[in-house]
Protein backbone atom coordinates (compact mmCIF):
# COMPACT_ATOMS: atom_id res chain seq x y z
CA UNK A 1 0.00 0.00 0.00
CA UNK A 2 1.52 3.33 -1.00
CA UNK A 3 1.44 6.54 1.02
CA UNK A 4 -1.50 8.04 -0.76
CA UNK A 5 -3.78 5.02 -0.48
CA UNK A 6 -2.80 4.48 3.16
CA UNK A 7 -3.65 8.08 3.91
CA UNK A 8 -6.98 7.84 2.06
CA UNK A 9 -7.99 4.68 3.88
CA UNK A 10 -7.03 6.09 7.28
CA UNK A 11 -8.96 9.27 6.54
CA UNK A 12 -12.03 7.37 5.37
CA UNK A 13 -11.89 5.13 8.43
CA UNK A 14 -11.64 8.07 10.77
CA UNK A 15 -14.51 9.85 9.06
CA UNK A 16 -16.73 6.78 9.32
CA UNK A 17 -15.84 6.33 12.96
CA UNK A 18 -16.55 9.94 13.69
CA UNK A 19 -19.77 10.15 11.72
CA UNK A 20 -21.08 6.84 13.02
CA UNK A 21 -21.19 8.14 16.57
CA UNK A 22 -24.18 10.14 17.82
CA UNK A 23 -23.90 13.81 17.08
CA UNK A 24 -23.64 16.10 20.00
CA UNK A 25 -22.93 19.75 20.51
CA UNK A 26 -20.55 19.08 23.36
CA UNK A 27 -17.33 19.15 21.31
CA UNK A 28 -18.46 20.25 17.90
CA UNK A 29 -17.06 23.65 17.09
CA UNK A 30 -14.66 23.71 20.01
CA UNK A 31 -10.93 24.12 19.60
CA UNK A 32 -8.31 21.93 21.27
CA UNK A 33 -4.61 22.52 21.69
CA UNK A 34 -2.34 19.62 22.50
CA UNK A 35 1.32 20.33 23.27
CA UNK A 36 3.34 17.14 23.50
CA UNK A 37 6.81 16.08 24.48
CA UNK A 38 7.86 13.35 22.07
CA UNK A 39 10.50 10.66 22.05
CA UNK A 40 11.46 9.15 18.71
CA UNK A 41 12.16 5.55 17.66
CA UNK A 42 13.56 5.09 14.12
CA UNK A 43 12.14 2.23 12.07
CA UNK A 44 12.60 1.06 8.50
CA UNK A 45 15.83 0.03 6.84
CA UNK A 46 16.61 3.37 5.18
CA UNK A 47 16.15 5.31 8.38
CA UNK A 48 17.97 2.87 10.65
CA UNK A 49 20.90 2.55 8.29
CA UNK A 50 21.47 6.28 8.76
CA UNK A 51 20.59 6.73 12.44
CA UNK A 52 19.50 3.84 14.59
CA UNK A 53 19.41 5.35 18.05
CA UNK A 54 16.35 6.04 20.21
CA UNK A 55 15.97 9.78 20.68
CA UNK A 56 14.63 11.75 23.63
CA UNK A 57 14.36 14.92 21.57
CA UNK A 58 11.09 15.88 20.01
CA UNK A 59 7.91 17.87 20.30
CA UNK A 60 4.52 17.88 18.63
CA UNK A 61 1.69 20.41 18.62
CA UNK A 62 -1.81 19.53 17.45
CA UNK A 63 -4.50 22.15 17.00
CA UNK A 64 -7.92 20.81 16.05
CA UNK A 65 -11.54 21.86 15.94
CA UNK A 66 -14.41 19.54 16.75
CA UNK A 67 -16.46 18.62 13.70
CA UNK A 68 -18.72 16.33 15.68
CA UNK A 69 -18.79 15.00 19.20
CA UNK A 70 -16.08 12.49 18.34
CA UNK A 71 -14.33 13.74 15.22
CA UNK A 72 -12.01 16.71 15.24
CA UNK A 73 -9.98 18.07 12.36
CA UNK A 74 -7.02 20.40 12.36
CA UNK A 75 -3.29 20.62 11.90
CA UNK A 76 -0.24 19.04 13.41
CA UNK A 77 3.31 20.33 13.45
CA UNK A 78 6.28 18.63 15.03
CA UNK A 79 10.01 18.63 15.41
CA UNK A 80 11.59 15.21 15.80
CA UNK A 81 15.32 14.56 16.05
CA UNK A 82 17.25 11.36 15.48
CA UNK A 83 20.95 11.31 16.19
CA UNK A 84 23.67 8.70 16.34
CA UNK A 85 27.42 8.33 16.05
CA UNK A 86 28.20 5.40 13.81
CA UNK A 87 30.54 4.19 11.10
CA UNK A 88 28.54 3.83 7.94
CA UNK A 89 28.29 5.63 4.61
CA UNK A 90 26.07 8.65 4.11
CA UNK A 91 24.81 8.78 0.55
CA UNK A 92 23.57 11.97 -1.07
CA UNK A 93 22.54 12.39 -4.71
CA UNK A 94 25.97 13.78 -5.62
CA UNK A 95 28.16 12.97 -2.62
CA UNK A 96 29.07 10.26 -0.13
CA UNK A 97 30.84 10.29 3.20
CA UNK A 98 32.08 7.16 4.95
CA UNK A 99 33.69 6.67 8.32
CA UNK A 100 32.85 7.37 11.90
CA UNK A 101 30.53 10.34 12.01
CA UNK A 102 27.73 12.01 13.88
CA UNK A 103 24.60 11.58 11.86
CA UNK A 104 21.47 13.60 12.54
CA UNK A 105 17.96 13.65 11.14
CA UNK A 106 15.82 16.69 11.86
CA UNK A 107 12.23 16.08 10.79
CA UNK A 108 9.49 18.70 10.79
CA UNK A 109 6.09 17.30 9.77
CA UNK A 110 3.40 19.81 8.73
CA UNK A 111 0.20 17.82 8.47
CA UNK A 112 -3.54 18.12 8.19
CA UNK A 113 -4.88 15.82 10.87
CA UNK A 114 -8.07 14.20 12.05
CA UNK A 115 -8.78 12.52 15.37
CA UNK A 116 -11.62 10.30 16.51
CA UNK A 117 -12.10 10.13 20.25
CA UNK A 118 -14.14 7.29 21.74
CA UNK A 119 -15.58 6.85 25.21
CA UNK A 120 -17.38 9.31 27.41
CA UNK A 121 -16.30 12.75 28.62
CA UNK A 122 -14.78 12.70 32.07
CA UNK A 123 -13.33 9.23 31.63
CA UNK A 124 -10.23 7.79 30.07
CA UNK A 125 -10.89 7.92 26.33
CA UNK A 126 -8.99 6.14 23.57
CA UNK A 127 -8.42 8.04 20.37
CA UNK A 128 -7.21 7.34 16.84
CA UNK A 129 -5.69 9.82 14.49
CA UNK A 130 -4.46 10.12 10.91
CA UNK A 131 -2.91 12.86 8.88
CA UNK A 132 -1.16 13.78 5.69
CA UNK A 133 0.86 16.64 4.32
CA UNK A 134 4.49 17.58 3.98
CA UNK A 135 7.57 16.74 6.01
CA UNK A 136 10.76 18.79 5.91
CA UNK A 137 13.73 16.54 6.60
CA UNK A 138 17.34 17.53 7.09
CA UNK A 139 19.99 14.80 7.05
CA UNK A 140 23.34 15.93 8.37
CA UNK A 141 26.64 14.06 8.63
CA UNK A 142 29.55 15.48 10.60
CA UNK A 143 32.89 13.69 10.32
CA UNK A 144 36.11 15.39 11.25
CA UNK A 145 36.32 18.55 9.12
CA UNK A 146 33.63 17.45 6.68
CA UNK A 147 29.92 18.16 6.86
CA UNK A 148 27.32 16.83 4.46
CA UNK A 149 23.85 18.28 4.64
CA UNK A 150 20.85 17.30 2.60
CA UNK A 151 17.37 18.74 3.00
CA UNK A 152 14.21 17.70 1.22
CA UNK A 153 10.47 18.18 1.36
CA UNK A 154 8.70 14.84 1.44
CA UNK A 155 5.08 13.80 1.20
CA UNK A 156 4.16 12.66 4.66
CA UNK A 157 1.55 10.60 6.45
CA UNK A 158 0.91 9.59 10.01
CA UNK A 159 -1.31 7.27 12.01
CA UNK A 160 -1.79 7.50 15.74
CA UNK A 161 -3.36 5.74 18.71
CA UNK A 162 -3.54 7.02 22.25
CA UNK A 163 -5.58 7.73 25.31
CA UNK A 164 -6.86 10.89 26.92
CA UNK A 165 -6.76 11.01 30.71
CA UNK A 166 -8.96 13.77 32.14
CA UNK A 167 -7.56 16.08 34.75
CA UNK A 168 -8.98 18.99 36.67
CA UNK A 169 -10.87 21.74 34.85
CA UNK A 170 -10.70 21.41 31.08
CA UNK A 171 -7.17 20.04 30.88
CA UNK A 172 -6.41 16.51 29.76
CA UNK A 173 -3.25 14.43 29.69
CA UNK A 174 -2.64 12.49 26.47
CA UNK A 175 -0.40 9.51 25.89
CA UNK A 176 0.05 8.54 22.26
CA UNK A 177 2.12 6.52 19.82
CA UNK A 178 2.34 7.92 16.30
CA UNK A 179 3.75 6.33 13.18
CA UNK A 180 5.32 8.99 11.00
CA UNK A 181 6.46 8.52 7.44
CA UNK A 182 8.29 10.82 5.04
CA UNK A 183 8.09 9.15 1.63
CA UNK A 184 11.08 8.67 -0.66
CA UNK A 185 12.71 11.70 -2.27
CA UNK A 186 16.16 11.50 -3.91
CA UNK A 187 16.70 8.08 -2.39
CA UNK A 188 15.90 9.30 1.13
CA UNK A 189 12.95 7.95 3.10
CA UNK A 190 12.40 8.42 6.80
CA UNK A 191 10.13 6.43 9.12
CA UNK A 192 9.82 6.55 12.85
CA UNK A 193 7.42 6.21 15.75
CA UNK A 194 6.97 8.92 18.34
CA UNK A 195 5.84 8.23 21.88
CA UNK A 196 4.34 11.40 23.27
CA UNK A 197 3.10 12.77 26.55
CA UNK A 198 0.79 15.72 25.99
CA UNK A 199 -1.22 18.35 27.77
CA UNK A 200 -4.48 18.98 25.97
CA UNK A 201 -6.47 22.14 26.49
CA UNK A 202 -10.01 22.86 25.37
CA UNK A 203 -12.53 20.51 23.87
Amino acid at each position, binding site marked *: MNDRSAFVWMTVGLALLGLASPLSAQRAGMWTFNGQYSTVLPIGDLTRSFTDGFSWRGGTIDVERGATDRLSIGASVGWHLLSEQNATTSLLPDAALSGTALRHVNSVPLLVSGTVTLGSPGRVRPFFGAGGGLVWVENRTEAG*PFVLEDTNWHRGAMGEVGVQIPRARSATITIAARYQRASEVNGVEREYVTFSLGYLLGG
Partner: protein
Amino acid sequence: MPGAALVCLLVTAACYPGQIEGVDEPDVVLTVFDPSAAFGSFVTYAMPDTVIEVDAPGTDVLPTPELDQQVLDAVATEFAALGYTRVTPEATTAPDLIVLLSVSASEAPLWTDDPWWALWGWFSGWSSWYPAWGADWVLRYPWAESYPGVRRPGTLLITMIDPDHSGSEPQSIPVIWASALDGLYTGSEASVVSRFQSLVRQAFEQSPYLHPDRP
Protein backbone atom coordinates in the same frame (compact mmCIF):
# COMPACT_ATOMS: atom_id res chain seq x y z
CA MET B 1 20.25 39.97 23.45
CA PRO B 2 21.95 37.50 25.80
CA GLY B 3 18.59 35.75 25.99
CA ALA B 4 18.39 35.51 22.22
CA ALA B 5 21.93 34.18 22.06
CA LEU B 6 21.09 31.56 24.66
CA VAL B 7 18.02 30.50 22.68
CA CYS B 8 20.12 30.22 19.50
CA LEU B 9 22.69 28.15 21.35
CA LEU B 10 20.06 25.84 22.81
CA VAL B 11 18.32 25.38 19.48
CA THR B 12 21.59 24.61 17.71
CA ALA B 13 22.65 22.18 20.41
CA ALA B 14 19.26 20.51 20.27
CA CYS B 15 19.33 20.09 16.50
CA TYR B 16 22.87 18.68 16.41
CA PRO B 17 23.55 17.04 19.77
CA GLY B 18 27.16 16.05 20.18
CA GLN B 19 28.36 18.62 17.71
CA ILE B 20 30.52 20.36 20.27
CA GLU B 21 32.32 17.16 21.11
CA GLY B 22 32.75 16.45 17.43
CA VAL B 23 34.18 13.37 15.88
CA ASP B 24 37.87 13.23 15.31
CA GLU B 25 38.18 9.67 14.17
CA PRO B 26 40.58 9.00 11.31
CA ASP B 27 39.68 7.26 8.10
CA VAL B 28 36.95 9.50 6.78
CA VAL B 29 36.45 9.40 3.02
CA LEU B 30 34.44 12.04 1.20
CA THR B 31 33.52 11.81 -2.46
CA VAL B 32 31.62 14.37 -4.52
CA PHE B 33 30.81 14.40 -8.22
CA ASP B 34 29.22 16.53 -10.90
CA PRO B 35 25.99 14.78 -11.99
CA SER B 36 26.19 16.40 -15.42
CA ALA B 37 29.43 14.59 -16.26
CA ALA B 38 29.17 11.68 -18.71
CA PHE B 39 31.04 9.12 -16.64
CA GLY B 40 29.87 6.25 -18.79
CA SER B 41 31.77 7.55 -21.82
CA PHE B 42 35.25 7.70 -20.32
CA VAL B 43 37.82 5.11 -21.30
CA THR B 44 41.29 6.61 -20.94
CA TYR B 45 42.97 8.73 -18.31
CA ALA B 46 46.32 10.25 -17.50
CA MET B 47 47.79 10.73 -14.04
CA PRO B 48 50.97 12.68 -13.25
CA ASP B 49 53.43 10.52 -11.32
CA THR B 50 53.69 12.86 -8.33
CA VAL B 51 51.60 13.62 -5.28
CA ILE B 52 51.78 17.40 -5.07
CA GLU B 53 52.12 19.03 -1.67
CA VAL B 54 49.66 21.91 -1.74
CA ASP B 55 50.19 25.19 0.10
CA ALA B 56 53.44 26.13 1.73
CA PRO B 57 55.62 23.20 2.70
CA GLY B 58 54.56 22.15 6.18
CA THR B 59 56.02 20.11 8.94
CA ASP B 60 52.99 17.95 9.61
CA VAL B 61 53.11 16.04 6.37
CA LEU B 62 55.36 13.10 5.91
CA PRO B 63 57.97 13.50 3.16
CA THR B 64 57.49 10.04 1.78
CA PRO B 65 58.25 9.68 -1.92
CA GLU B 66 58.05 5.90 -1.68
CA LEU B 67 54.67 6.13 -0.03
CA ASP B 68 53.54 8.60 -2.68
CA GLN B 69 54.32 6.03 -5.32
CA GLN B 70 52.35 3.36 -3.46
CA VAL B 71 49.35 5.67 -3.22
CA LEU B 72 49.59 6.48 -6.93
CA ASP B 73 49.78 2.77 -7.67
CA ALA B 74 46.73 2.11 -5.50
CA VAL B 75 44.71 4.70 -7.41
CA ALA B 76 45.91 3.28 -10.73
CA THR B 77 44.91 -0.20 -9.59
CA GLU B 78 41.37 0.96 -8.88
CA PHE B 79 41.05 2.61 -12.29
CA ALA B 80 42.41 -0.48 -13.97
CA ALA B 81 39.89 -2.63 -12.12
CA LEU B 82 37.14 -0.42 -13.54
CA GLY B 83 38.42 -0.91 -17.07
CA TYR B 84 40.07 2.46 -17.61
CA THR B 85 43.28 2.62 -19.63
CA ARG B 86 46.10 4.85 -18.43
CA VAL B 87 47.97 6.83 -21.07
CA THR B 88 51.42 8.37 -20.77
CA PRO B 89 52.32 12.05 -21.24
CA GLU B 90 53.92 11.12 -24.53
CA ALA B 91 50.65 9.89 -26.01
CA THR B 92 49.56 11.86 -29.03
CA THR B 93 45.86 11.51 -28.30
CA ALA B 94 44.44 13.33 -25.32
CA PRO B 95 42.96 11.09 -22.63
CA ASP B 96 39.32 11.36 -21.61
CA LEU B 97 40.25 12.20 -18.03
CA ILE B 98 43.05 13.66 -15.97
CA VAL B 99 43.52 12.45 -12.41
CA LEU B 100 45.54 14.59 -10.00
CA LEU B 101 46.71 13.72 -6.50
CA SER B 102 47.65 16.30 -3.92
CA VAL B 103 48.19 16.40 -0.18
CA SER B 104 47.59 19.40 2.06
CA ALA B 105 50.54 20.72 4.01
CA SER B 106 48.44 23.10 6.06
CA GLU B 107 44.79 23.63 6.86
CA ALA B 108 42.84 25.22 4.05
CA PRO B 109 39.31 25.39 2.68
CA LEU B 110 38.43 22.01 1.27
CA TRP B 111 37.61 23.19 -2.23
CA THR B 112 40.04 25.96 -3.07
CA ASP B 113 40.51 27.14 -6.63
CA ASP B 114 43.84 25.40 -7.05
CA PRO B 115 46.20 27.18 -9.45
CA TRP B 116 46.60 24.64 -12.16
CA TRP B 117 49.79 25.98 -13.70
CA ALA B 118 51.69 26.48 -10.45
CA LEU B 119 50.88 22.98 -9.22
CA TRP B 120 50.69 20.89 -12.34
CA GLY B 121 52.27 22.98 -15.07
CA TRP B 122 55.32 20.72 -15.24
CA PHE B 123 53.24 17.80 -16.53
CA SER B 124 54.23 17.53 -20.16
CA GLY B 125 50.89 16.21 -21.34
CA TRP B 126 49.10 19.51 -20.81
CA SER B 127 50.85 21.49 -23.51
CA SER B 128 50.33 18.94 -26.22
CA TRP B 129 46.78 17.95 -25.31
CA TYR B 130 45.19 21.19 -24.08
CA PRO B 131 47.15 24.17 -25.45
CA ALA B 132 44.25 26.53 -24.87
CA TRP B 133 44.71 26.49 -21.11
CA GLY B 134 46.61 29.51 -19.85
CA ALA B 135 48.85 29.83 -16.82
CA ASP B 136 46.24 31.76 -14.88
CA TRP B 137 43.55 29.12 -15.14
CA VAL B 138 42.38 27.40 -11.96
CA LEU B 139 40.76 24.13 -11.02
CA ARG B 140 37.20 24.81 -9.91
CA TYR B 141 34.96 22.58 -7.83
CA PRO B 142 31.31 23.17 -8.81
CA TRP B 143 30.04 21.83 -5.47
CA ALA B 144 32.24 24.10 -3.34
CA GLU B 145 29.31 26.02 -1.92
CA SER B 146 27.11 22.98 -1.38
CA TYR B 147 29.67 20.98 0.54
CA PRO B 148 32.01 23.30 2.40
CA GLY B 149 34.65 21.95 4.69
CA VAL B 150 38.25 22.07 5.70
CA ARG B 151 41.23 20.27 4.25
CA ARG B 152 43.33 19.37 7.26
CA PRO B 153 47.08 18.80 7.04
CA GLY B 154 47.81 15.43 5.54
CA THR B 155 44.52 15.14 3.66
CA LEU B 156 44.89 13.40 0.32
CA LEU B 157 42.78 14.86 -2.46
CA ILE B 158 42.13 12.87 -5.62
CA THR B 159 40.78 15.13 -8.34
CA MET B 160 39.30 14.12 -11.68
CA ILE B 161 39.03 16.49 -14.63
CA ASP B 162 37.18 16.01 -17.89
CA PRO B 163 38.99 18.41 -20.24
CA ASP B 164 36.03 18.45 -22.63
CA HIS B 165 33.62 19.48 -19.87
CA SER B 166 33.43 23.22 -20.28
CA GLY B 167 33.38 25.35 -17.19
CA SER B 168 30.67 27.88 -16.50
CA GLU B 169 33.25 30.48 -15.54
CA PRO B 170 36.03 31.80 -17.76
CA GLN B 171 39.53 30.43 -17.24
CA SER B 172 38.30 27.65 -15.03
CA ILE B 173 38.89 23.93 -15.36
CA PRO B 174 35.90 22.21 -13.83
CA VAL B 175 36.47 19.18 -11.63
CA ILE B 176 33.93 16.40 -12.15
CA TRP B 177 34.87 14.10 -9.26
CA ALA B 178 36.97 14.45 -6.16
CA SER B 179 37.72 12.40 -3.11
CA ALA B 180 39.20 13.71 0.12
CA LEU B 181 40.85 11.22 2.48
CA ASP B 182 41.02 13.13 5.72
CA GLY B 183 44.41 13.27 7.40
CA LEU B 184 45.76 10.24 5.55
CA TYR B 185 49.33 11.50 5.62
CA THR B 186 49.44 12.17 9.35
CA GLY B 187 50.82 9.78 11.93
CA SER B 188 53.63 7.35 11.39
CA GLU B 189 54.50 6.06 7.97
CA ALA B 190 53.56 2.58 9.11
CA SER B 191 50.13 3.89 10.05
CA VAL B 192 49.65 5.42 6.63
CA VAL B 193 50.83 2.28 4.89
CA SER B 194 48.36 0.19 6.86
CA ARG B 195 45.41 2.39 5.92
CA PHE B 196 45.79 3.94 2.52
CA GLN B 197 44.84 0.98 0.36
CA SER B 198 41.50 0.39 2.05
CA LEU B 199 40.72 4.11 2.05
CA VAL B 200 41.53 4.54 -1.63
CA ARG B 201 39.39 1.49 -2.37
CA GLN B 202 36.57 2.95 -0.28
CA ALA B 203 36.66 6.15 -2.33
CA PHE B 204 35.94 4.13 -5.46
CA GLU B 205 33.43 1.80 -3.85
CA GLN B 206 31.26 4.66 -2.70
CA SER B 207 31.34 6.17 -6.21
CA PRO B 208 29.27 3.66 -8.19
CA TYR B 209 28.87 6.08 -11.12
CA LEU B 210 32.55 5.42 -11.90
CA HIS B 211 31.60 1.80 -12.51
CA PRO B 212 29.79 1.92 -15.83
CA ASP B 213 29.32 -1.44 -17.44
CA ARG B 214 32.67 -2.00 -19.02
CA PRO B 215 33.80 -4.87 -21.21
